[in-house]
């Protein structure tokens, strides 16, 4: 089976500071890939490289190759705005816009000029994000009135409105309570029937709970990647074992 995303020899720099060195990694369709590792190890840079959010950083540079369905994503002729709709992103801190819940959801479709069927899609996305029951009567209220956990699920639903092929999550549960975290994890398990998830997480247990495969990043290098079971039960590198068992990080 050919992988959905093929990352080959991907390196990245912020100015002269190397951030990622020579990453090669496959991401398969319909899986949840967890990216774990200590802070500053390049997890987020890797994730933001996939939808080229790093390009917003003036000093950023990258080399190598990232292919999605065989199409090179690092090419100059790639329309990054279109690319980012295919690889939707959710950030560590929930960022609802200070408008109503519904307008948050309609933001993405409106960018593309879609105005039809937005309500049906909004309901579907909210259900997929396990938020529908909590907000179905508050769609016209400000999104800022929601709790932190609800805001993050709204951001997830807002990203799903784009109907992306890949969902990129950057520590989406880092500031959330256990119940909201459980809801998001449940949502991810359902979502992988329709799309592919890359989950950057600081929480090793979260990776073991939801991920099909896990990749371990350390100091800008990919130490190893494999099925979550293999990484957790029988890692080939001692570094991986030490990180997972909590000896550093």
């Amino acid at each position, binding site marked *: 089976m050919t992988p959905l995303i093929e990352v080959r020899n991907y390196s990245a720099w912020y100015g002269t500071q190397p951030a990622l060195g020579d990453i090669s990694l496959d991401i398969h369709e319909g899986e949840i890939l967890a990216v774990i590792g200590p802070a500053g190890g390049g997890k987020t840079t890797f994730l933001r490289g996939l939808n080229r959010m790093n390009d917003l950083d*003036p000093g950023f540079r990258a080399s190598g190759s990232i292919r999605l369905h065989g199409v090179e994503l690092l090419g100059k002729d790639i329309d990054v705005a279109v690319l980012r709709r295919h690889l939707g992103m959710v950030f560590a801190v929930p*960022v609802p816009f200070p408008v109503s819940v519904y307008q948050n959801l309609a933001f993405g479709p409106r960018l593309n000029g879609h105005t039809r069927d937005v309500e049906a899609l909004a309901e579907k996305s909210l259900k997929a994000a396990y938020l529908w029951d909590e907000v179905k009567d508050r769609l016209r209220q*400000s999104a800022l009135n929601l709790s932190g956990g609800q805001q993050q699920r709204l951001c997830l639903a*807002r990203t799903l409105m*784009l109907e992306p092929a890949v969902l990129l999550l950057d520590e989406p549960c880092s500031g959330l309570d256990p119940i909201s975290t459980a809801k998001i994890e449940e949502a991810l398990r359902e979502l992988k029937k329709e799309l592919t998830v890359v989950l950057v997480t600081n929480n090793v247990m979260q990776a073991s709970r939801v991920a099909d495969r896990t990749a371990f990043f350390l100091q800008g290098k990919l130490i190893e990647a494999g099925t979550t079971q293999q990484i957790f039960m029988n890692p080939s590198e001692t570094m991986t074992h030490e990180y997972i068992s909590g000896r550093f990080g």
Partner: protein
Amino acid sequence: MKRLIGIASWFFPSLTGLCCLLILAMVVIILGDIALHGVQRLSWEFVTAEPRVGMTEGGIFPAIFGTVLLVILMTIAVVPLGVATAIYLHEYARQQSKIVHLVRLALQNLAGVPSIVFGLFGLGFFVAFLGSGIDAVVFGGRLTYAQPCVLWASLTLAVLTLPTVVVATEEALRAVPRNYREAAYAMGATRWQVVRRVVLPQSVGGMLTGAILAISRGAGEVAPIMFTGAAYYLPYLPKKLNDQFMELGYHIYVMTTQSPDVEATKPILYSTVLVLLLVTFALNFTAIIIRSRIRRKLRST
């Protein structure tokens, strides 16, 4: 040591309190003096009639009309230009580029130029250069725009207040969290969509604050309009953009320095100053109401 701290703990608070009182006293004395003397001559006739008998009789309606017209034209000119400049500087331009550096330097210097220099600039650039150019090209050399008029005066004021608007707008743009921009970009927004749908709605209040500051500054300036359009005395109201106009601040200047009978104009002078303050306040108040309307509208949608 302990005693010193004891003294300091009542001395410095008293000193700062005294300073506050001093400022309050200055405002109260100035405003009180103007209000007290100004209200004596204030009447319906005074604000609706023209000046008569060498400005010792009658009212100041042409000057009120001219001031309001001047400020409105200035606002129409300066707000779009200033906002567009700030958006370019903050959202589009590469921050390290030479041009951006130069534009910022120019704005900072513009803010420090004495207002009389703006008056001379307006005379030289707008009246003599632009005006003559327009006359030569459009009106076949007939004198139309190559003279001081309300258009050139308001544009001169617009140049004077441009730094205020740009700085206030940039401040407002800077206050929009980076998170919002990132979230919009991550949803596939183009740069213009980010500006149009995320940044502008968030910062429109701050931009209007810039407009309000510009109005406050512009409405009180006399020097920039002396050579560029304000008239000593006009028996009619300006009807076209190339008409001259009377203005409250300039009218006050004229009555104080040029009047043949200073004692006779004194009550009128006081009332005119009072009216100038009220007009400035009214213009500001209008802008503040417009701002709060727009803010409420944005919040509800």
